[in-house]
């Protein structure tokens, strides 16, 4: 399903991936987060994924899926490690943590999911359309929060986006994932 891909992302770098729907962008992110079996090799600071316990790998290589999932009644129940970024920076009120998840809008949930992921302080962020449900103001807030995180933690980011202007704003490099555009099968990540 996924063609050969060879890419390398450095600490503090934001690699944007665009491409047609069904081109395998999400599958690539899932493979890097080790959620699907794959034939390729993924290295983090030179260490292959299979040499790291899966849960530690996924803590380090954090994937933000396009649709967020919540398993406890309130968003606040999902945060154990404190807030890495204030809710205000994402345009959210503090009281949102005590509201039932079912009453939040998809945009609110998406921003909270980003916050939940950042709380793990991953060295690599895999973002799958992180601003898909957001208005321009909140899109800007999310972009700023991610840029800050990247600077502060020297993280590496792989950002899947449909939005050309967004790619121009946030990308330090841009790759078009088209069928068969890449040759080898290796992903190298550096933090």
């Amino acid at each position: 399903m996924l063609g050969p891909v060879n890419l390398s992302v450095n600490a503090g770098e934001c690699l944007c991936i665009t491409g047609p729907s069904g081109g395998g962008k999400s599958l690539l992110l899932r493979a890097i987060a080790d959620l699907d079996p794959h034939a390729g090799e993924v290295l983090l600071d030179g260490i292959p994924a299979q040499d790291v316990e899966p849960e530690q790998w996924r803590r380090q290589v954090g994937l933000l899926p396009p649709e967020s999932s919540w398993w406890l009644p309130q968003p606040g129940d999902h945060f154990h490690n404190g807030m890495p970024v204030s809710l205000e920076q994402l345009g959210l009120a503090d009281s949102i943590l005590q509201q039932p998840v079912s009453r939040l809008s998809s945009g609110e949930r998406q921003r909270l999911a980003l916050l939940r992921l950042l709380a793990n302080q991953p060295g690599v962020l895999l973002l799958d359309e992180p601003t898909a449900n957001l208005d321009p103001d909140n899109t800007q807030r999310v972009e700023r929060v991610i840029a800050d995180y990247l600077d502060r933690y020297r993280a590496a980011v792989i950002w899947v986006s449909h939005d050309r202007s967004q790619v121009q704003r946030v990308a330090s490099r841009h790759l078009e994932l088209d069928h068969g555009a890449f040759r080898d099968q290796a992903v190298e990540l550096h933090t």
Partner: protein
Amino acid sequence: MITLSQFDLLIASTLVLLLALISMRMRTGITGQLVIAAIRTALQLTLIGLVLKTLFANVQLGWVALLSLFMLLIAGREVMVRQERRFRGWWGYAVGTFSMFLSSFAVTIFALIAILGNDPWYAPQYAIPLLGMMLGNTMSGIAIAMDRLTHAAWEQRNQIEARLMLGERWDTAISEYRRQAVRSGLIPIINAMAAAGVVSLPGMMTGQILAGAAPVEAVKYQILIMFLVSAGTGLGTLAAVSIGARHLFDKRQRLCLDRLRER
């Protein structure tokens, strides 16, 4: 004790026929299944009666073991077909059958040796009915629990994977569904114990009393059976759900829904 003649059973069967006629006229679409099930009951029970008669006449461990194995394999198949989204391939059969083997056989052998203390311990008059009761109940418990588990994994895959993405271990990510599955497997036997004697007179006890046993003796056996059945069902359900939950994930703790049948 009143011995039943074949004619007596024929009279009883007219009631089933009556029901079949009514259900046919109502076009319930279940008449065929009803008649076939009734015929199966008569045939299967007659057959097992003959088998038990022969077995009682030749008390040998080998024969008892053979019949037990046969019962286990049939029960295993029953557990398998009752799960909508079971595991593909031989796993779909093995999880339930192995768990039933573990729990039913262990509890039955324990009861035969430690409680009944027969000589020989495998005396078929006790061993076979006891095992049958165990298998019958464990079977439903495991089938319900496994159905629930695989269903939940399928429906809630996004949630389970979201937890994996945040660095949770597989057993944490599925813990809630594992608990729910065990609970649903145990509810029938808990209800049966709670209602016994008040709402329902359990079938085994009723049978013994009809066959002329003293009620107090029949009741003691029934209590024994209830305890054994709940222990067996509980252990079997726990085993099946634990093995099943683990098999939903691979070595890299990925949720592997391709291991389940499509339906």
